């Protein structure tokens, strides 16, 4: 028997998710009796909302969205850490800025105030003893690195994958501060409603196992994945870039111990506390309530 499951994705079907897109060729989920579909979304909040409306069973979303939803009274279950590594960073070409502390008083570009770049920048600043009021934020939207290149900002908040094309486009000698070096809050989770968890626990377990397999596959076959992405991912035109991006995600998928998908309750709790301190969520959360660790 096959059961269908739907993922609400935080983005369109992009290169870094080639392991999910390779289903046609490799059938990781089909093997587990799962008929998988994916809903595209525009941001982690959208993903979560699309899951909450019942359009999807599982949300592929970022901790910020999960914390917010929990703080707003939703009862969710974190099943899995897709990327244990925080992929956000702050990039500058200003030699004066040697550490996050030097960002004080600078202009920093973010994607928008509803994006991970904003939230993670705040985390980085917080860990460096700064706050939002110590810097000048500029919502630069899709412009990404261009204001940095144009000199309109002193630094810009981004992700590791965004940096790839930027460096190719001639972003020279950047100074990069990784958020993970300050506080390594994971990048993305698989989250479900508690009711879904209770209803479909076994199926979800199968799903997680299948997902791990797919990740394993991508780690082992980055070249094949990069090739496949050309066809399958909407942004996969250039296999070389694909390859770099896939490498980055493969790295992000492993925790310090080189394990895939390990859920680390402590760092998730620390993240929630930090988000509360930063005013990103309105109340303190006891995260252990919302985590169900799926073991093999």
């Amino acid at each position: 028997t096959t059961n269908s499951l739907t993922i609400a994705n935080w983005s369109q079907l992009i290169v870094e998710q080639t392991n999910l897109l390779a289903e046609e060729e490799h059938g990781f989920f089909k093997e587990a009796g799962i008929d998988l579909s994916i809903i595209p979304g525009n941001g982690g909040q959208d993903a979560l909302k699309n899951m909450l409306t019942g359009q999807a069973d599982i949300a592929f979303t970022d901790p910020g969205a999960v914390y917010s939803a929990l703080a707003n009274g939703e009862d969710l279950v974190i099943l899995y850490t897709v990327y244990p590594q925080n992929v956000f960073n702050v990039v500058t070409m200003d030699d004066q800025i040697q550490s996050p502390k030097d960002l004080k008083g600078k202009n920093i570009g973010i994607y928008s105030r509803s994006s991970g770049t904003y939230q993670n920048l705040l985390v980085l600043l917080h860990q460096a003893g700064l706050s939002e009021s110590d810097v000048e934020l500029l919502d630069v939207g899709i412009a990404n690195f261009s204001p940095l290149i144009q000199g309109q900002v002193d630094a810009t908040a981004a992700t590791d994958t965004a940096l790839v094309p930027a460096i190719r486009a001639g972003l020279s000698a950047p100074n990069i501060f990784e958020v993970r070096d300050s506080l390594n809050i994971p990048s993305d989770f698989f989250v479900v409603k508690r009711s879904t968890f209770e209803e479909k626990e076994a199926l979800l377990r199968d799903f997680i196992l299948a997902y791990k397999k797919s990740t394993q596959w991508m780690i082992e076959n980055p070249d094949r994945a990069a090739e496949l992405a050309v066809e399958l991912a909407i942004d996969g035109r250039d296999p070389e870039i694909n390859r770099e991006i896939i490498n980055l995600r493969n790295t992000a998928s492993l925790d310090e111990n080189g394990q895939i998908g390990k859920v680390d309750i402590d760092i998730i709790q620390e993240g929630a506390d930090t988000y509360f301190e930063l005013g990103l969520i309105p109340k303190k959360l006891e995260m252990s309530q919302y985590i169900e660790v799926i073991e093999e």
Partner: protein
Amino acid sequence: MNKRASLLSLLMGVFLLFIWELSARQVSELILPRPLTVFTVLWKGILDGYFLSHILTTVVELIIGLLMGGFLGVLLGIIIGESPFLKNVFSVYIVISQAIPKIALAPLFMLWFGYGMMSKIVITALICFFPLLEATASAIQHVNSDQLTLFRLMNASRWQTLWYLKLPAGLPTIVQGLRVAVVLSLVGALVGEFIGAKKGLGALIIASQGMMDTTLMFAVLILLAVLGCILYGLVNILENQLWYSKENRNEKN
């Protein structure tokens, strides 16, 4: 009669609120908060002045953008309506200016007009000039031919024919374009603010999305709705001052 309409309109509003309440009960607060919650947040935000600066920012961008876009729209509409030649020359580029989503060009706007209000104003103007342009051009092209002959007889210059005949005769159509432009200017200001603004209702929507504060977002949406109705109402009031609405009233008997 008008009272009955207002009543029915109100009733419909109540009905929609009811639907809203019912739908809200079905889904999470994060997707659709309840009316009462939203209005509470709205009311608080109004009382403590939280919304004030945002509303002001948006209104200023919108008004300046509308004035610029309106002026440009009428001007280009006149040019295109007057000269089939220039119409053939320009219309492709005008259509292109509309077909390309402003959001995609955001970095260029920011580069050219800065991150302040100016880029929002330009985007607003760019979005709202098109319906006025089309309305004006159409109005100018479809003038009564007897009246045109009269003006030719009187040796009227092109400008005079425009000013004393085509524009007044086309006023109903132009006002109709204005009605669309005014509503689009609100959309324009918002789109401009989505791209990167610290203040304004659009910025507030983005911020509320980041915090997943759907209640706040809906409060902002209600403010937008009210703003839209006020702008639209202003055009209606303006229209009532114009000759042709009086004319129509006269004729009915």
